[in-house]
């Protein structure tokens, strides 16, 4: 199940919310919360409503389509990543050893990704330093992704400096 938040704009009259809830229910979604933002009423008098729910990833597109087909404006929707992050340093010939490949190995796990990276190259052929921020869906997966990174870096002769 994917955590999803969406903001829809509803006309201020009875029978509107059900147009959003019905498709969610029919596609097996589980509603976490519904918040009416009456203080953010739009110039055309519509009320933004924020809905948090869990739904099967494969049904998200269908859900948005169904809601819009009922004449509801879906202002935005986002998959929520309950991300935990950590920073580490890589020291060595980061570029020469194919940085892309190192980053890809993390990204293709599906549960972790490299969300930030800074590289400093002092001189040609001198070891460079990369500051990397890793993000994963939970602590356990974060630990696992650090393990993967360490393994790759070990084979490439790159030193990994982990946080405390």
């Amino acid at each position, binding site marked *: 199940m994917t955590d999803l938040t969406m903001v829809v704009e509803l006309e201020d009259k009875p029978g509107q919310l059900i147009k959003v809830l019905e498709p969610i229910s029919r596609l097996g979604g589980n509603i976490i919360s519904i918040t009416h933002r009456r203080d953010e009423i739009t110039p055309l008098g519509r009320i933004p409503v924020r809905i948090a729910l869990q739904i099967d990833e494969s049904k998200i597109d269908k859900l948005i389509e169904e809601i819009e087909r009922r004449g509801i404006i879906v202002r935005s929707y986002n998959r929520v990543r309950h991300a935990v992050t950590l920073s580490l340093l890589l020291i060595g010939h980061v570029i020469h050893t194919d940085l892309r490949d190192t980053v890809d190995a993390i990204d293709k796990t599906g549960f972790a990704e490299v969300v930030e990276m800074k590289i400093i190259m002092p001189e040609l052929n001198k070891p460079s330093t990369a500051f990397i921020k890793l993000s994963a869906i939970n602590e356990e997966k974060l630990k696992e992704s650090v393990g993967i990174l360490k393994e790759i870096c070990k084979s490439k002769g790159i030193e990994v400096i982990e*946080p405390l």
Partner: protein
Amino acid sequence: MNIVIIGFGSVGRGVTRVLIEKKKFLRNFLGDYKVIAVTDSSGGIYDENGLDLRKVLEMKSKGGLPKEITSIEVIRDLDFDVCIEVTPTNVENGEPGLTHIRECLKKGVDVVTSNKGPLVVAFRELMNLAKKNNARLMFEATVGGAMPVIKLAKIDLAGNEILSVRGILNGTCNYILSRMEKELLPYELILEEAKELGIAERDPTYDVEGIDAGAKLVIIANALMGLDAKFKDVERVGISNLTPEAFKVALENGYTIRLIAEANRDFLRVSPRLVPLNHPLAIYGTLNALEIETNLAGNVFVIGKGAGSVETASAIISDLICLKSLRY
């Protein structure tokens, strides 16, 4: 209390100086004490009525101790209460300290040591030997110099289970890393500076490759956490590959880098780590620090001088006083 001092390098002489200079004060805790033998690797001197320690220090500075007696002869043939074993550390085979300590414990004689080697090589064996012979082996001075670690955990935190420890156990590395952080200069340059100041040895391998910190970590893990770890169990990375750029980019993101020794149920590791600048382990200069995670008291943090002749003597004296209170 009859004492023998085996090993007369910087630590042995530091202890001797304290035993001379603080005699009146220490008598309050130790009662009457005398040192009846002092030996080092090339000589030894003894007097069963008590040596004049000032003269012994003078002999040592003027060419060495006389060759009256060897360390082994002292241990086997003389009658004494406590052996202060302060010979140099060898983490490969523990010698010569291992033999000295074994022989003392077999006789049922208490030992106070600053020598990491024997404890790294044969921690459990020595502890069992001590128990079997109703002797005590005290080793506060092996880890963290003057910083209280062993007795802190054993006495003050008694009843707590120690879940993990992590800290800075090598002052030389910490000096180099804090200087690299401040100056953003290359490792080699700061190492030279540390050598000139006498903070790093001419051959700095033992410190900068994390061997010293690893040895201390093994002792702490075994003593505090009840493990039976050996030196080879320590995953170890030194500090020589660290670059000024690494510090620069770390600082920009709110971190510094320190050589951290860490032990828990899963691993023992000495390696450079990113430490948040506001974390208590982001310490400067030659200081040592240790964070002890306990099950009852939560986290306990100590910081202090990790090396130095008088500082190490402080740990040895505190062990002597502890023995005295347990024994007599």
